[in-house]
């Protein structure tokens, strides 16, 4: 599963962000990103037939504000914190759901409800992930971390 996630995550991120959010992010080398704060995070647990994974997304406030404002069609003012958090959870849901479809479109997966992990987070939040991916544009950075949930703990049956 991890191999499939590694192979497909960037494609899924592009499909979701470009199709529904009109955002075009480039993949960035994670190792060159400075340790810094100002991130908002959400995560979702996906349980599969034999194991599962947790997908955590950290978005820089500046990027999330731009994406949320565009997505909600706000012509004036900035999206509220609640609106920004809802948009981040929606992105997390869509990325995880589409990733699962790439893993095995015929297998049963249990896609959890996205949860907010916090505001004013730092990159340390996802340092324990087995894989971390970074994407960004001039408005900011989106970090995506993957944690594998092995065996029965990650299986939903």
């Amino acid at each position, binding site marked *: 599963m991890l191999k499939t996630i590694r192979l497909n995550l960037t494609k899924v991120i592009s499909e*979701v962000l470009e*199709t529904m959010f009109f955002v075009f992010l480039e993949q960035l080398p994670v190792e060159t990103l400075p340790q810094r704060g100002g991130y908002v995070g959400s995560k979702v647990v996906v349980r599969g037939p034999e194991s599962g994974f947790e997908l955590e997304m950290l978005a820089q406030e500046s990027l999330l504000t731009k994406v949320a404002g565009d997505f909600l069609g706000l012509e004036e003012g900035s999206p509220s914190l609640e609106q920004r958090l809802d948009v981040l959870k929606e992105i997390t849901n869509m990325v995880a759901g*589409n990733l*699962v479809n790439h893993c095995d479109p015929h297998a049963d997966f249990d896609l959890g409800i996205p949860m907010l992990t916090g505001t004013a987070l730092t990159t340390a939040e996802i340092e324990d992930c087995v894989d971390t991916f970074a994407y960004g544009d001039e408005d900011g950075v989106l970090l995506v971390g993957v944690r594998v949930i092995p065996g029965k703990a990650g299986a939903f049956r």
Partner: protein
Amino acid sequence: MVLTDIHMPGMDGVQLLRKLKEDPMTASLPVIMITTESRDEIASDALAMGAAGYIKKPFRPEDIKALLTGILGGESAQDDSSEPDEGDF
């Protein structure tokens, strides 16, 4: 018309669809299900329960427009004798 995500906290979209279809006041409302999952059985289950349509995220604006046009067009074809009330689509 109701557009609902299948994947929601508390009451999911399938439960909402069931409740809407069970209530005579809302049973005739067209319900469109929105989801990230592509499994065919989810779509066929929703349609079997009375959903008017199904769309997978991410979708383009023209995709949802085509779906809505098809459903609204179908409705007006079935009920073109009545004058629309003020406030109707």
